């Protein structure tokens, strides 16, 4: 499974994270079995300027700053492809 953690913290939520919370429903059918989407209270990344800007998500532990649906889809497709290759 690919872990997708969406930050529910104040800053992320206000800077676009709110829209990402409904991402699971928008995932292509074939990805839904592969991706475990969870909300987390906070990634604590916004407190550190060197990590980029909110909103943040984590994909298999990898932090993605300034997260958008497009950015997440792009990285997810790479991970899905890699997971397929491993099979």
């Amino acid at each position, binding site marked *: 499974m690919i872990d997708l953690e969406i930050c529910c913290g104040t800053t992320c939520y206000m800077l676009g994270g709110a829209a990402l919370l409904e991402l699971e429903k928008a995932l292509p059918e074939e990805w839904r079995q592969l991706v475990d989407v969870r909300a*987390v209270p906070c990634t604590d990344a*916004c407190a550190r300027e060197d990590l980029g800007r909110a909103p943040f998500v984590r994909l298999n532990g990898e932090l993605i700053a300034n997260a958008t649906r497009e950015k997440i889809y792009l990285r997810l497709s790479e991970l899905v492809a890699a997971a397929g290759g491993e099979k």
Partner: protein
Amino acid sequence: MAEPFVEMEYCQITKDGQCACGDDFQWEKPAGEERCIAVLSDGLGSGIKANLLANMTTTMALKFMRSNKPILRSAEIIMDSLPVCEVRKISYATFTIVDLSAATGRARVIEMGNPGYIQLRGETEIPPCSTGNLVSSRWPDRQMDISEIQMAVGDRLIFCSDGVTQAGLGRPEYRFGWRRQGLLEFARELILADPGISARDLSRTIAFNAMSINPDRRCVDDITCAVIYLRKPRTLRIITGPPFHKEDDGAFAALAVPDGGKVIVCGGTTANIITRVLHREVHIDLKLACCSGGLPPPGRMDGVGLVTEGILTLTRVAGLLEAHEWEDAPAAAREIIGLIEESDAIEFVVGTKVNEAHQDPKLPVDLEIRRNIIKRLHEILEKDYGKKVTVRYF
């Protein structure tokens, strides 16, 4: 043991066809005193005229009691002040005053013209004990009964207007109305069925039952039932904000373990600190995201309880409490308010570290400083909701 909490609630139903209730109930806990004063008054007649009489009586009585004025003189001033009814050429409003010391349980009940109070210990009645009466030489037909009573933790005091005890008049099975005895038996049954029934639920159930036994279930007289419940406080701890010093994280997180009361964690970083120290997981239901009303969805922390986002949610809760309106509130705010409603004593544990990201000018709304929101909540919860509030900073 913590000092008992005084839950004071009432329920009022206005007579059919009237736009204002002819009864009035007011209460207060004077600042800096462990004392609760409640006044219930029934104005002569019904509608606006009665409302005015009752309201003047409760307002004046409350003020006189607060400043410890002699009761006879106070009653004379009240009776002298009430406007005279053009039709009946008299001025009249009954009253029941309860002046209770929360610390000792001692209470003075002063009654004039209302149905007699009921004191219940569990479902057992403690018979009323009038310790004297006062009669003004200028108002010889207005006798006041005074009872000095002792309340214990778990006791309830019920008092009402005659719209309750005279309910049912006109029906063969209630030839003399529900009467005090009928009310007493009904209250005892309710407490037997639910020994922890709140003052709010008890007063509501009594008032609505009184209306339901009236002919055609109509409200033929103004109905007011007040209940004072002296009980062990139900506590709620709201933990929010990371501590200023990281070395305090352990002590701060330890407070998230419920010790007889309920706990809410408000804030993502706060939740993370507690997760790290106590090894507890947070589960957020993403299904609630679609109807979260502009707030991040609430979650649950194993062995702790409700977890929500911090600043936005607490700001919304403060606004809703100030507006006294939360029926359509987002899930996170509604859950917090629900737990607040169920609690008597609320302790805020507030970490004072400021998240610099919250000061980002690019944020679409200004975020208030956490301490200011807690101040707002502290004030409104004490003033409008009678909660006992304490704040501990980290």
